[in-house]
C-alpha cells in the first residue's frame, strides 16, 4: 500500500466546525488580495526603514521584525475577538490605547473601517446558516456606536475606532473560519501587503516576491508567531521590536513618500 504524503505541521486547512463549504468560501474571500481593505496604501514602516537604513537595508531582516512586531502588538486582539465577539467594543478601545503613533493608528483604522464596510455592504447579506446571532448583534452594535459619535468632547477619546485586528477576528469567527485559520490569514495578509509594498518600492520584482511568499521560512515564521501569541492576554500584548515604533512614527518625516 502506498503511503500518503505527510500532513503539514499544523493542518490548517482541515475544515473543522459546523460550517464547512461556506467557511471555506469565506476563507478564500478574506485571504484574497483583491479584498478592498486599502492595505496597498500602507507600507507598515518599510518605506521609513529604507530611508533610515539605506544603503544597508535588508528586506528579510525587516520582514522578520515586522512579523514579530505585528504579531505581538495585534494578534492577541484578533484571537480575543474571535474567541469572544461580544467584547468587540472593549477590544477595539484597548487596542487603541496600545497604539503609540498616529501613522500606525491611521493604517489600522483605515483598514478596519474598510473591513467593516465590506461586512456591511457585501458579507452580512450572505451569512452562513449557523452564524452566531450574538456575534452578529455585537458587530451591529459596534457599527452603530462608530457612526453615532466621532469623539467624546469631554475626554477627547473616541468611543469606537474600528481597528483592523479585533474586527478581523470577530468577522472571521462569524463567517465560520476557525481560530487557527483566522490567525494564519491575518498574518499572511500582512506578509503579502509587505511584499507588495516592497515590489512597489522597487526592492525586487514580483517573481522574487512570490518566491519569498512561498518559502519555508515564511510558513514557519507565521506558525511560530501564532504559537507565541496563542495564549497571550490582551493586557500583555505589546511591542517586541521597539525600533519599529520609531520607524513607523517617523514615517511622516520622509521628504517624499509613496505610501501613507
Amino acid at each position, binding site marked *: 500500500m502506498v503511503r500518503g504524503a505527510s500532513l503539514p505541521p499544523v493542518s490548517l486547512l482541515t475544515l473543522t466546525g459546523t460550517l464547512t463549504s461556506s467557511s471555506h468560501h469565506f476563507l478564500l474571500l478574506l485571504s484574497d488580495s483583491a479584498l478592498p481593505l486599502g492595505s496597498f496604501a500602507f507600507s507598515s514602516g518599510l518605506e521609513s526603514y529604507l*530611508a*533610515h537604513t539605506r544603503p544597508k537595508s535588508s528586506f528579510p*531582516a525587516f520582514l522578520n*521584525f515586522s512579523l*514579530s512586531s505585528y504579531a*505581538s502588538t495585534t494578534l492577541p486582539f484578533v484571537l480575543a475577538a474571535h474567541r469572544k465577539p461580544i467584547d468587540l467594543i472593549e477590544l477595539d*478601545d*484597548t487596542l*487603541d*490605547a*496600545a*497604539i*503609540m*503613533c*498616529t501613522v500606525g493608528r491611521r493604517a489600522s483604522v483605515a483598514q478596519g473601517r474598510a473591513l467593516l464596510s465590506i461586512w456591511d455592504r457585501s458579507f452580512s447579506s450572505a451569512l452562513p446558516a449557523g452564524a452566531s446571532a450574538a456575534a452578529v448583534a455585537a458587530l451591529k452594535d459596534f457599527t452603530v456606536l462608530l457612526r453615532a459619535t466621532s469623539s467624546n468632547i469631554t*475626554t*477627547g*477619546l473616541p468611543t469606537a475606532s474600528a481597528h483592523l485586528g479585533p474586527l478581523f477576528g470577530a468577522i472571521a469567527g462569524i463567517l465560520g473560519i476557525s481560530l487557527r485559520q483566522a490567525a494564519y490569514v491575518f498574518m499572511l495578509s500582512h506578509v503579502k501587503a509587505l511584499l507588495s509594498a516592497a515590489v512597489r518600492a522597487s526592492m525586487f520584482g514580483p517573481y522574487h516576491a512570490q518566491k519569498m511568499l512561498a518559502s519555508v521560512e515564511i510558513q514557519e515564521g507565521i506558525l511560530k508567531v501564532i504559537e507565541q501569541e496563542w495564549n497571550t492576554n490582551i*493586557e*500583555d*500584548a*505589546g*511591542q*517586541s*521590536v*521597539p*525600533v519599529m*515604533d*520609531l*520607524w513607523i*512614527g*517617523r514615517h511622516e*518625516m*520622509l*521628504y*517624499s513618500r509613496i505610501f501613507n
Partner: protein
Amino acid sequence: MTSPFPVSSSAPGEGQIVVEILPHGISALSKITFQYPLKLISPSPAAGQKSVLVFLLTYGGGLVGGDQVHLTIDVKPDGKLSIVTQGHTKIFKSPTRDVITKQRLHVTLQDNAALCLLPDPVQPFEGSVYQQSQTFTLVNTASLCLLDWVSAGRTARGEDWDLSTWSGRNEVWALAEPGGKPRLLLRDNVILAGDLEDSKDKGLRKKMQQMGIFGTLVLRGPLVEGLAAFILNEFATLPRIGARDFRSQDKMNEDSGITLSLDEKWRQTRLAQEKADTVLWSAARVRGCTVVKFGARTVEGGRVFIGSLIKQEGSISQIFGEDSILCIR
C-alpha cells in the same frame, strides 16, 4: 499562648508613599514606608521646595534575581512629588527563566496633584529576567511626567542586549470622578525576548538595531502641557529625511550670515547631537497623553537628548524644582 504582638503587615519589597499639601502650601510626606530590597530616602523638607523629592533605591544599586518590589504612591490634592534614582537600576542575572525580578508601581494622583518620575535607566545584565509594571490613575486635573528607559546592559563588559527577558508596561488610567470607573488611556508594553543560551543567532541584538538605550516619555495633564506642545512642535519641525538643499551657493552664503535666535541655535546644536549619537525619536498625541519614543546609540546620547528637550523648555524644573531633573542633567 498567642503572641502579644500585632501581626506584621510588612512584606519584602513593599513600600508606600503618601504626599499631602501642608497648610502653608508646601508638599510633604505624610507616609513613607519601605522594606528591603526597596529603599526610599527623602531629604528634609526645605522652605521653598516646589515638590517632595524621593530617591527610589535598591541595596547595592540593583535587584537580584527574584527580588520583588511593590511601591504604592498616593499624591493627595495639590501635592507634588518628584522621584529620582542614584544611578542605573541594575538587574542581576537569574539562575533560570522562572526566577523573575519584578518591580510594580501603583500611583494615584488626585485633584491638581502632580508626579515627576525621571529616573536613571534600568540596566539589565546578561541572563536577567525582569518584569516591570507601572500604573498611573489620574483625575482630569492631575499631571504626570514619566520617563521609562532601558539600556543594553554593561556595555563596558561587552554586553549588548544579552538579557534573558525584559518587559516593561506603563498604563495611564483616567478617573472622571473619584470613586468612578477608570478609563484606560494608554497601555505601553515593551517586550524584549532575549535569545536562548544555546542559540548562536543574536536575534534580540539585531532587533535593537545598534541602539544602546531605548526609552519612552509620557506626559499627561495641565502642568506638563507646555512641555508636550514644545516637544510635539520640535518633532514636527525636524528636517525631512531625504530632503535636498536646492539653494544656490550665493543663497547659502547669505543664509549662513543670518544671526540665529537662541532657540534656533539650541535647535541646531540639538540636531547635530542627534546626528552624532544616532538618536531616533518620534512624538505623538495618544488619547489625551503625549508619548515620546526614542533610541540612541549610547546611554549618554539618549540622556543628553531627552535632557536637552526638558531643560530647554524649562517647565519641569520650574514646577517640580531643580532636583526633579537630577538624572537627566
